[in-house]
């Protein structure tokens, strides 16, 4: 009797790229819902549109490169990139911001470098940084939960705002937006206030503005689930958050009036979602265990440096892209000791 032959292992594989990506998508759900709760329908509108655009660009590029479109879309990586990009964008940002951002993420950062597995930079963060430096005004208008409650912006009105770039009649941007915690801290300190004065504001919860804290908690929950499911390893999130908190702690101890607390830094901006969802993008991160620890630590350090002394209130995206540049070097110098070899790497 004759049989088909194929290579080992002869077991059903336990993982697939699409499966890995989809677990990350599930883990984003709680945090995204929390953001929707606080920042309104705009979050969902952005996520949906950004995913739509990303998948379209992905399909176009895959077709242009002569690869199987449906099989490639099945890996869900475009959905993930679009989703992460959308979470970084203010919920009422105009549609062209989404379009340009996703175009850069998928077309330039991903496919011009060879597609999934070959992009040296995190696509979602490339897209975000492009729109951040190009359209600073649109990217600074974060709605405030209480402003949205007062304005009672409906889903349709939100969609309309996104598509037209204009608020419904009778509404003012000033009334429904306010500075994010990192912005607020930055501007207040520049204007001579102390850290304690800022955090004593009724907008603040335990460490940061309440809504950011809650979104952070729920992204943390998703991140811990990813760790539990072994989709990500502990190295990058732990080293990034620990470094951020440690460096912040040192300066905070030196001058607590001028430097914000470690907890504020961890629970503000994109620190938590960055640690668990963005910096852990395996393609653009370091791949050796030690390399990942250094990679995460570098992101934590750069985030603090740029937040504190740089030109932008948040810095996770820049820090991630900067560390993407050195990831191959980190991998080169952090090779694990091979079984049966001595420390210096020779048999």
């Amino acid at each position, binding site marked *: 009797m004759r*049989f088909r032959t194929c290579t*080992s*292992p002869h077991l059903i594989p336990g993982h697939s*790229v699409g499966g*890995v990506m989809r677990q990350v998508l599930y883990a984003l759900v709680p945090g995204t819902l929390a953001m929707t709760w606080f920042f309104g329908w705009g979050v969902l509108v952005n996520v949906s549109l950004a995913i739509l655009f990303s998948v379209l660009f992905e399909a176009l590029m895959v077709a242009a490169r002569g690869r199987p479109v449906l099989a490639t879309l099945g890996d869900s990586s475009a959905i993930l990139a679009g989703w992460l990009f959308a979470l970084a964008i203010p919920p009422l940002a105009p549609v062209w911001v989404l379009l340009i951002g996703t175009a850069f993420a998928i077309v330039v950062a991903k496919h011009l470098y060879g597609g999934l*597995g070959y992009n040296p930079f995190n696509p979602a963060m490339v897209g975000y940084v492009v729109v951040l430096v190009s359209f600073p005004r649109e990217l600074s208008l974060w709605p405030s939960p209480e402003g949205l409650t007062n304005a009672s912006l409906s889903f349709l009105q939100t969609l309309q705002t996104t598509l037209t770039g204009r608020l419904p009649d009778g509404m003012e941007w000033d009334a429904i937006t306010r500075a994010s915690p990192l912005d607020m801290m930055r501007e207040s300190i520049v204007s001579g206030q102390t850290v304690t004065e800022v955090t004593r504001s009724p907008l603040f919860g335990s460490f940061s503005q309440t809504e950011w804290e809650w979104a952070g908690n729920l992204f943390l929950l998703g991140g811990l689930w990813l760790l539990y499911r072994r989709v990500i390893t502990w190295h990058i999130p732990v080293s990034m958050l620990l470094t951020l908190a440690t460096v912040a702690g040192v300066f905070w101890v030196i001058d607590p009036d001028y430097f914000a607390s470690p907890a504020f830094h961890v629970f503000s901006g994109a620190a938590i979602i960055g640690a668990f969802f963005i910096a852990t993008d395996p393609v653009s991160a370091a*791949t050796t265990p030690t390399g990942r620890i250094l990679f995460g630590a570098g992101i934590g350090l750069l985030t603090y440096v740029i937040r504190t002394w740089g030109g932008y209130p948040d810095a996770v995206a820049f820090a991630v892209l900067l560390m993407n540049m050195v990831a191959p070097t980190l991998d080169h110098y952090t090779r694990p000791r091979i079984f049966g070899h001595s420390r210096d790497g020779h*048999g």
Partner: protein
Amino acid sequence: MQLHRFHGGLKLPDHKAESTVHPLLTMGVPKYLYVPLSQHIGAPTEPLVQPGDHVFKGQRISQAKDYICAHVHAPTSGRIKDIVDHPIPHPSCLSAPCIVIESDAHDQWGDTRLPAWPDWRERDARSLRERVRAAGIVGMGGAAFPTAAKLNPRAGKRIHTLVVNGAECEPYISCDDILMRSYPEAILEGARIVAHILGAERVLFAVEDNKPEALRALTDARRAEEADFIRLVSIPSIYPTGGERQLIQVLTGREVPSAGLPADLGIVCQNTGTLKAIRDAVLQGQPLISRIVTVTGPGIREPRNVEALIGTTFADLVAAAGGYAPGVDRLVMGGPMMGFAIGDDAVPVIKGSNCLLATRVQDTPAPGPVMPCIRCGECTRVCPANLLPQQLYWFAKGKDFDSVQDYGLFDCIECGCCAHVCPSNIPLVQYYRFAKQEIWGREKERQKADLARERFEFRQLRQEREEREKAERLARKKAALAKKDTDPDRKTAIDGAIERARAKKSAQSNEEAPPADRERANS
């Protein structure tokens, strides 16, 4: 006993119960046996028989010509039908020379049987090793390295520990389990013999903790007074803990050096089946002509362990295990992690055949399309050699053979953990095998080229030397001639001789003609 961990590894569903519910079945003698000339690592053997010859059971029918080689014996009595190319269990699915024996159904031992040595303790290591060699024994865990060579560590290596590998870590395989349950005394006796050959002070007998019956049988069979000498160790069931290097690390916490052997740590490792074969060879004078094979998997009706003669076809084995289940699609020799698919069930059982696994489409679906590596690092997490499989893949794919070696390609044991966890379905081990083959091929080419260049250079050197010597000789001759011309005594002597010759010639020319001819003849 303090156990240690090796890096990575996988916890896999073991699927061993399927084949251990039925007792061990000893198969009858099939009509035809196909005995390959090469069943081991090393040089092939040279046949001692001709088609038409009659052979007895246990008669040596093919001879080892090399140190790393193992004799082949007739598994039963009968007539040599032919020596032809027949499919063999090899990943290439190619055929190789096999001795085809037509059984005479008497299964008769001849008088060539080796003498039994119940007094083996009185014999020295050398003669016992010679017996192991005469019995054609190879490692029966699958690698089939000639055992006599393994029992003869390089000079200066003192062996203190014999590690008995009863781990059997691959899913589905249970031949060692059944062997340990069925013949615990024989295996322990084999361990005593090998410890005697090696001069080892202790035996560490490791069994994975998913084989409690085997461990109990061994504990019952071990003599009370040798509890210190033979230590039975239950080890955690983590694939690939049965890898020689991994097992040694689990038991001793020490790593076998990359380019070295266990003997460098004073350890020799033997599989349980090999020990049983050694015991049979020494105590009964019986060469290695049969083995236990696990015939299992969802593609087999009655999975079980079968004791079969070497040369029995897989088709006969499957028939003994109730035949194929409907939908059978893939036949694997070995386990699911390291075994290779074979294309034809006409291939015979060889000394290293531990398992025959048959699966259906739903058990082993065709792998999905290969996706790009996303550097997720799962492979790094599970690699027992602590390599970076994703980087090895990258270099192997790019044919960067220097870098791939720099990243430890040759420390890869091809266990398949990386390929199993890869979300992108990349057949990683295939890439490593490819890179190894290429590097070996290039090394061979290089050696050939080196040899050719050396030969060429030597030839050139020799020609130059010959030229030089010729020139020198010529020069010497010229110098000698010049000297001759100037030597006055010699000159007068020569002149005198010429005179005499001339006188003689003129005298002769008067006697007979033609003078020119004579002159030519004299010159």
